[in-house]
């Protein structure tokens, strides 16, 4: 029997190695898997590269991970408002920030997921975020070449999941989660609801279980009002 369910947060994040590239789902705190982040803090892996749209403002857990000095690099589109924990490390030169346009992050992650090593995009052409990158003209317009962004681990917040790892999301909690879920060697999911195999409508599954390695059931609270 295929059973990707694990009993605890500790089991879910077991084995994350030092130096891992970690994709962190969520847009702000909506869809950000707090309990898995808490598990990662406990678990102890260091020298991490975190890929997250934001730097953790309003997040109970991400600033803690920064404050503990566990993150070497953040790949991010919008690290504002900036949590003090990140800002201090950044100003002290103790953390690297790779600033990437939001759509380019999403597409680089998807590219990794679908076996595309590189693609061209019009985003950032003529700006300092394209400096040093290959520019190429197609049909009279310039484009930047961007590379696939592969990861070791993805931390995902789902709404419903079954034992095969099929997932659905809720509202804008979807955001980066389905894209990131496809792109990591080890995709770890916390789900608000665990359902029986066959309960999810095949037409409405957003992330097919093939992309998922571990699922843990966490009755996490709703995001706070914003």
């Amino acid at each position, binding site marked *: 029997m295929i059973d990707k369910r694990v009993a605890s947060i500790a089991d879910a994040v077991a084995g994350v190695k030092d130096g891992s590239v970690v994709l962190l789902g969520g*847009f*702000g705190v*909506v*869809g950000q898997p707090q309990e898995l982040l808490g598990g990662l803090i406990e678990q102890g892996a260091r020298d991490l590269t975190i890929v997250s*749209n934001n*730097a953790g403002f*309003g997040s109970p857990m991400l600033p803690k991970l920064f404050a503990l000095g566990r993150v070497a690099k953040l790949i991010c*589109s*919008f*690290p*504002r408002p*900036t949590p003090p924990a*990140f*800002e201090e490390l*950044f*100003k002290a030169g103790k953390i690297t*920030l790779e*600033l*990437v*346009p*939001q*759509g*380019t992050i*999403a*597409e680089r*992650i*998807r590219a990794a997921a679908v076996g595309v090593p590189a693609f061209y*995009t*019009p*985003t*950032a*052409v*003529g*700006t*300092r*975020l394209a400096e040093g990158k290959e520019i190429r003209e197609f049909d009279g317009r310039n484009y930047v070449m961007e590379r696939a962004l592969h990861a070791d681990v993805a931390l995902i917040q789902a709404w419903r999941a079954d034992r095969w790892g099929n997932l659905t999301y*809720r*509202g*804008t*909690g*979807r*955001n*980066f*989660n*389905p*894209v990131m879920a496809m792109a990591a060697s080890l995709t770890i999911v916390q789900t608000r609801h665990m359902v029986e195999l066959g309960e999810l409508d095949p037409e409405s599954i*957003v992330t097919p279980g093939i992309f998922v390695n571990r699922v843990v059931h966490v009755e996490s609270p*709703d*995001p*706070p*009002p*914003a």
Partner: protein
Amino acid sequence: MTTRGIDDVVKPWDRQQMAARLARDIPEGWYVNLGLGLPTLIPDYIPEGREVVFHSENGVLGMGPVPPKDHVDTWLVNATKQNITLVKGASLFHHADSFGMIRGGHLDLCVLGAYEVAENGDIANWATSQNDAVPAVGGAMDLSAGSKRLWVLMEHTTKDGLPRIVSRCAYPLTAACVVKRVYTNLAVIDVTERGFEVLDMAPGVTLESLQACTEAKLRRVG
């Protein structure tokens, strides 16, 4: 009628009037993304019954108004991370699909704030220097490069009265040659191959007074 100084009898549009002036020009059926700040006021001024579909880059088409405080679904936020509602006909999708929509030119309009707009359509709206403490760009570059048309909604000058409509941007660019129109508190200005063309001005504003607070050359049309 004599020409007067801009501080004299001019009645600049206020923030609500700026949003309303722009909203007037959005026809039914457009798919529209609104940036942070001023542009978020626009939906309030779309005339009742005119269907315009608002996109939020975090995966929503058909964004509705802010919910009453006792009916908030906190799983629904917009790009500014405010709680929102969905209108009938709304759809939800993931970030790669959402930015595919943006980059692929499917949005009829994006309205962004800006620090500067140049006469060739360059926009600078994400960084005020080459060494911001913690820089942030979000989806601004994708939206600028990808939308069918980009309109900028901003104050005509800085708080110190310095021009923001310029021959060449001094701040780091968000995208090159993309702005189609600028709505300010003083005027509506098209970006054309011939440079800036003034379409409309707030009450009391003259081309001369407008030019006086604009670094780039303006022409009046129509």
